[in-house]
């Protein structure tokens, strides 16, 4: 290239460069605005979440330290605490083995195909049904048709329907983490499928299974709409028995009733109602946090024990 040509190209090159620099400066401004907005939104939402949880924790915390809160008196929620754990255990006892069995079938026995897809589709659909609708179904199927009336049994069976999809998916995930080689190793030693599952797969999937139990427990504790009509809003006098045929309310349904439809008609003063509702709300948040911490921590701890041993 001649000297003149070189000079011309470099002049053209430098104006092009200047143009590019201007352009990039504009782009960077847009970038700063955009990412700045995102950071703003992110921080705002995070603060919103934290703020709500902290507020709910604090506003009723005073009541958690009152012994009357745990009694059977006017502001006592001992029956509700008892009922919550009762229904939790009853529902888990009914639903977890069934969900685990179904998960075992899907992962260990079934071939990927129409059947598995159908089950997953059904699970997704069932999971998408609003819990109030499941509650109404429970009234029809269990309270009326099965003659269980408004009872803990009806409530537990309704919770089975509610819990099934979530438990199934969590158990499937837990079983799926077991590597194929382990299963093949078991079978190669001459064990039958079921024996191999019992002795190899399930112990290996234990962390995931425990996590599943804890997470479903969390969901059950927080559930109210499905229990509203199947388990009721009142407690009979023999509430502390183990009978599944009596009606009872839980922390959540009780909170709903006192704060909403029953406000002013329970024969309690406003202060007492506030104590119940505020305290119950805080207690529920505390339970929720414990469950979340437990789900993470226990799962990891068991994993460490199982893999280290």
């Amino acid at each position, binding site marked *: 290239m001649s000297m003149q040509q070189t000079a011309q190209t470099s002049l053209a090159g430098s104006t092009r460069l200047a143009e590019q620099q201007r352009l990039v400066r504009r782009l960077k401004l847009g*970038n700063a605005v955009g990412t700045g907005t995102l950071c703003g939104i992110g921080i705002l939402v995070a603060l919103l979440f934290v703020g709500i*949880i902290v507020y709910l924790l604090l506003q009723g915390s005073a009541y958690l330290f009152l012994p009357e809160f745990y009694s059977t008196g006017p502001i006592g929620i001992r029956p509700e605490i008892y009922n919550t754990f009762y229904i939790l255990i009853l529902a888990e006892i009914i639903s977890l083995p069934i969900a685990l069995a179904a998960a075992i079938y899907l992962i260990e026995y079934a071939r990927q195909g129409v059947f598995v897809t159908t089950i997953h589709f059904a699970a997704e659909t069932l999971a998408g049904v*609003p819990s*109030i609708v499941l509650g109404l179904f429970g009234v029809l199927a269990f309270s009326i048709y099965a003659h269980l009336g408004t009872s803990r049994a009806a409530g537990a069976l309704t919770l089975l329907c509610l819990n*099934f999809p979530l438990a199934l998916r969590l158990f499937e995930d837990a079983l799926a983490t077991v590597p194929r080689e382990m299963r093949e190793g078991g079978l190669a030693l001459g064990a039958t499928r079921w024996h191999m599952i019992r002795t190899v797969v399930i112990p290996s999937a234990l962390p995931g299974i425990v996590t599943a139990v804890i997470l479903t427990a969390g969901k059950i504790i927080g559930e109210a709409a499905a229990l509203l009509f199947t388990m009721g809003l009142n407690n009979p006098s023999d509430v502390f028995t183990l009978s599944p045929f009596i009606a009872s309310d839980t922390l959540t349904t009780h909170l709903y009733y006192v704060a909403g439809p029953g406000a002013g008609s329970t024969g309690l003063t406003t202060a007492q109602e506030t104590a119940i509702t505020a305290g119950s709300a805080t207690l529920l948040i505390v339970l929720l946090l414990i469950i979340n911490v437990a789900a993470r921590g226990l799962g990891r701890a068991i994993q460490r024990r199982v893999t280290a041993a």
Partner: protein
Amino acid sequence: MQVGQQVTGRTYPADRLARIVFLMCAILLIAVLVGVFLFIGTNAFRVFSEGANVKDFFFGTYWDPSGNTTVSGNPSFQAGGLILGSIVITFFSVLIATPLAFGMALFFTELSPRWLVRLLQPLIEVFTGMPSVVVGFFGLIIIIPLLQRLVGPLVGNGQTAGYGWGAAILVLLIMILPTIISISIDALRAVPGSVREASLALGSTRWQMMTRAVIPAATTGLATAVVLGMARAIGETLAVSLVLDGQQLPKKLFTPAVFFQPNVNITQYIAIDFPETLGVGRDAYWTLAFILLVISFLFVCLSRYLASRSVYR
């Protein structure tokens, strides 16, 4: 064979039995779902043979299945107001939640340092599990008094200005935000790093990479997030019921004040009125339940369709 039996102690019949039991449990899931549709579906149409007609049911606005408040004492099966309420609060809550959720999800996946991600993740998970009553209670003690103070004087409803669709929208916002955020985060994470690298290597800014490369690659996943948020919103009961507090659809619909007075929607009315209603009135509630059932089913079908069209899983 003999040795094997001694060593493991298993028997073939037990194996076969186990397999059948497990299969039964899997089929039980389908049975439950079919049962739900059957039980509610067969009861859902009875109301139309007891005096309700379809057009009034969907478009009339006076809902009184027990006939307690009608002049003639006859039940009035007009769910138009309830349906409108559900549609309005679902629409607006999703409308407000979606940009916030997308922004949060982008912040989480593209801009947050690792320590912040480790903090935010459990926060989102905890919030997803918030019981509906607790959020409704929060609405009662914080949102409603706030709205009363802010909007009451403007609307002139006094004591009841905090209740209604406005409060319900805010409460729903809190409930569906974590859902949309989580699913959006999954959708964004499914976009492989190579797409981001390609964009940056061509001289784009981070913001351009996000808006021109990542989001377009994640559209079906993001759409699924919105659909599932909508599904959750329309079925939400207790939180909404605590803040709506209405008996009927208000008369004046087309003013902004309609958001700030006691109001109604489908789930709220079921929660409040179902236990009080007996006999013929109950049939109307099966119909409402069936409507919700069908809507939720359609949402699930939509989300599965979207998932099947995604580019990256």
